[in-house]
C-alpha cells in the first residue's frame, strides 16, 4: 500500500487510522493504478462496468462494422443497374466488378450504375438480427411441416434435458461412490477413463442402429458425451472433501452410511452443484452432433435450413437465442444455488447482483 500512503511526515499514525483508510469506500477510484494487480478483488462499481462492457464491446464492434460505410463493406448493393444486364436492384456485387462494369458503361456513354457499400449476406446488421428475432416467432416456416424457430429450440432443449438427466441419474451416484470408496474407484474409473477418450459422436451410427432414427439416439449421444466426464469430475470433487470432516464424524459415532449421506453429500454439495453447471455447458456442445444423426431436428436442423435459404439473419437470431438460453440457465442455476447453500460465504442476493459479482469476493465488509 506504499503507493497510496501520503508523503513523508504524514504517514498514518495509528493502526486504527490505517484500518479506516483501507476500508473506506474506494468506488470513487474506479481506475486505480493497481487495477491490474494480480488476484486483487475489484470494487463493486468496477465489476459492474466491466460486466456491461463485456457485452457492449462486441456489440459496438458489430455496429461499427455494420453501419460505418467505410469500415470493411467489401461489396456493393446495386440500387440502379443502369444498362448492365446481370445487375438487378438489391443484388450484391464485388467492388471490383462494379468498378469494371461502370468503366465499360462510361466508355459506351451510358450513365454509371448506382450502388451503396454493403457487407456480405452472412454478416447481417444488428437491427436485421433483432428484426429476424422478432419475425422468426411471428412468420410461419417456408415449407409445410418445417418447424418454427421456437419449436426447434424447444426440441433441442428437450434433448439436452433428457440426455443430461439420464447421465446424472447414473453419473452422480457413481461419481460420489468412486470418490468415497477407493475400492469402487479402482474398479470403475480406469474403464471410464478409457472410454471417455472415445468421442461420443463415433457412437452415432451405432446409436441409430440400436435405437432408431428419432430422439432416442440423440439423447444417447448427449448421455455418452456427458456421463463419463461426469463420473470422473464428480469422483474428483468428492475426493477433494476435507478428510478431517469425515474423521470428525467418525469420532462422533457416525457409521458408514451416515458418513455418506450426512457428511460426504452435504460436504461436496456446493462443488457438485457448480460441477453440474459446467457439465451442462458441455452437454450443449454435443447437441449439434446429436441432432444431425438419424433425422435432423432441433436448432441444428433449423440453422442448416436457414443457411440453405441464405437467411443469415435468422441464423444469427437462432445462435443468439442459444447463447441467451445457456446464459440465462446458468445465471438462474447460480441464483438458485445461493438459496440452496446458505452457508456459502460471499453471499450476494438478487439475480442481477449475482450476475455482476459472480465468483468474486466483494470488497465491502
Amino acid at each position, binding site marked *: 500500500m506504499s503507493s497510496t500512503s501520503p508523503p513523508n511526515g504524514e504517514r498514518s499514525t495509528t493502526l486504527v487510522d490505517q484500518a479506516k483508510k483501507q476500508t473506506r469506500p474506494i468506488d470513487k477510484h474506479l481506475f486505480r493504478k493497481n487495477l491490474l494487480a494480480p488476484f486483487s478483488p475489484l470494487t463493486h462499481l468496477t465489476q459492474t462496468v466491466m460486466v456491461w462492457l463485456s457485452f457492449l464491446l462486441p456489440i459496438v464492434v458489430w455496429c461499427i462494422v455494420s453501419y460505418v460505410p467505410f469500415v470493411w463493406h467489401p461489396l456493393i448493393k446495386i440500387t440502379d443497374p443502369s444498362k448492365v444486364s446481370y445487375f438487378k436492384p438489391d443484388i450484391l456485387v464485388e467492388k471490383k466488378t462494379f468498378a469494371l462494369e461502370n468503366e465499360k458503361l462510361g466508355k459506351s456513354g451510358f450513365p454509371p450504375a448506382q450502388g451503396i457499400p454493403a457487407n456480405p449476406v452472412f454478416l447481417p446488421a444488428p437491427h436485421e438480427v433483432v428484426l429476424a428475432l422478432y419475425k422468426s416467432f411471428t412468420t410461419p416456416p417456408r415449407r409445410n411441416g418445417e418447424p418454427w424457430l421456437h419449436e426447434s429450440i424447444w426440441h433441442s432443449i428437450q434433448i439436452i434435458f433428457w440426455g443430461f438427466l439420464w447421465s446424472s441419474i447414473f453419473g452422480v451416484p457413481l461419481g460420489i461412490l468412486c470418490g468415497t470408496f477407493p475400492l469402487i474407484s479402482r474398479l470403475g474409473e480406469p474403464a471410464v477413463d478409457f472410454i471417455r477418450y472415445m468421442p461420443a459422436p463415433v457412437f452415432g451410427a451405432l446409436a441409430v442402429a440400436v435405437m432408431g432414427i428419432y430422439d432416442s439416439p440423440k439423447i444417447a449421444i448427449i448421455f455418452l458425451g456427458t456421463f463419463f466426464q461426469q463420473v470422473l469430475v464428480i469422483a474428483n470433487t468428492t475426493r477433494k472433501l*476435507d478428510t478431517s470432516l469425515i*474423521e*470428525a464424524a*467418525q*469420532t*462422533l*459415532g457416525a457409521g458408514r452410511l451416515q458418513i455418506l449421506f450426512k457428511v460426504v453429500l452435504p*460436504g461436496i454439495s456446493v462443488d457438485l452443484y457448480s460441477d453440474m453447471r459446467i457439465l451442462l455447458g458441455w452437454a450443449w456442445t454435443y447437441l449439434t452432433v446429436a441432432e444431425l444423426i438419424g433425422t435432423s431436428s432441433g436448432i441444428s436442423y433449423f440453422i442448416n435450413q436457414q443457411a440453405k435459404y441464405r437467411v443469415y439473419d435468422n441464423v444469427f437470431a437462432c445462435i443468439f437465442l442459444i447463447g441467451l438460453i445457456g446464459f440465462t440457465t446458468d445465471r438462474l442455476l447460480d441464483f438458485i444455488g445461493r438459496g440452496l447453500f446458505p452457508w456459502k460465504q460471499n453471499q450476494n442476493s438478487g439475480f442481477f447482483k449475482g450476475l455482476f459479482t459472480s465468483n468474486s469476493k466483494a470488497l465491502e465488509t
Partner: protein
Amino acid sequence: MNSQYLPQNQDVATRFAKLKDRPVVLDVRNLTKGFSSGGNQHTALDRISFQVFRREFMCVLGPSGCGKSTLIRIIAGLDTPTSGEILLDGNQVQGPGSDRGMVFQSYTLFPWLTVKKNVMFGLRMSGQSLSVAESEALEWIDLVGLKKFKNSYPHQLSGGMKQRVAIARALANRPRILLMDEPFGALDAQSRAQMQAYLLDIWKNVDVTILFITHDLDEAVYLSDRILVLGTNPSRVSELIENPVPRPRNRAQFTSATFRATHHHLEELIHPPCAEVQERFPIPRMTTIGDDVE
C-alpha cells in the same frame, strides 16, 4: 519410569494418591507405530505405556514431529497401531467411536450446519430424537457461552468460537474421554489464554477425562494434572510428570516458584534437540552494517 523430580510436599503427594485411587479410564499398553514410506522404516511411537484416571486432565507434551498426533489418532481409532493395545474402561478399542470425543487442531466443524446442528450431530447419529437432541445441544452451547450464535454458520465465527463449538459438539456425546490435539494451536495468544481458562472451567463442571496434546510448555503446566513427555527418534515416554502447581489454577501462578520449576524441568527435557539443530546449521554472516545487535 521415574515421576519424581522435585521433592513432593505432603499436599501434592496426597493429591496424586487420591487421583490414582480413581478407576483407570484409558490404558495404553506398549503402543508401537511404524510407518514405512518409500522403503525406509520409521518408528513414530515406540512402546508407549501410560494410564489416565477418571476425571484426570493429562497433557501430552513433546517436540513437533515426535508422534503426538499419531498417538491421539490411534487412541481415537482413526489409525491402527503396529502393536500394543488400548483399553477404554477395560475394553479394547476397535475403530473410532463416540465414547472418545475428539477436538482437532484444524477446525472441523461441518460448514453446512449451524452451530446448533453441529452440536446435535453426534446425538442424531446415535439415534436421539430431534427434540431431545435439540434441547441437549442448546445446553452444551450455553455451557460454552455461545447461545447468541446458535443459528450462525461456522464461517461466521472466530477461531476460538469454532473450537468452543467443537468442544461442545464432542462433549454432547458424553464421551468417556475427550481427546484434544493442539486445539488452541492456531489461535492468537489472547484467545488461547481465554480458551485455556474456559477449558478448565468446563472440565471442572462436566464429568469428563481429558487427554490434551500440546507443544506449549506453559499450556501444559497451566492445564494438567500430569504431563506425559514424549522424546524424539524414536519417540518414547521420557517422563510422566506429576504437576505440583496447586488447583484451582489462575494465570497469576505463571510466576510462582512451583510453576517456574516445573516449566524449567520440562524445558530441560524438551530442549536439548533444539540446541543440536543450532549447531548443525551454522548461519553465515550476511550483513555488513551494524555488528552490535547483541
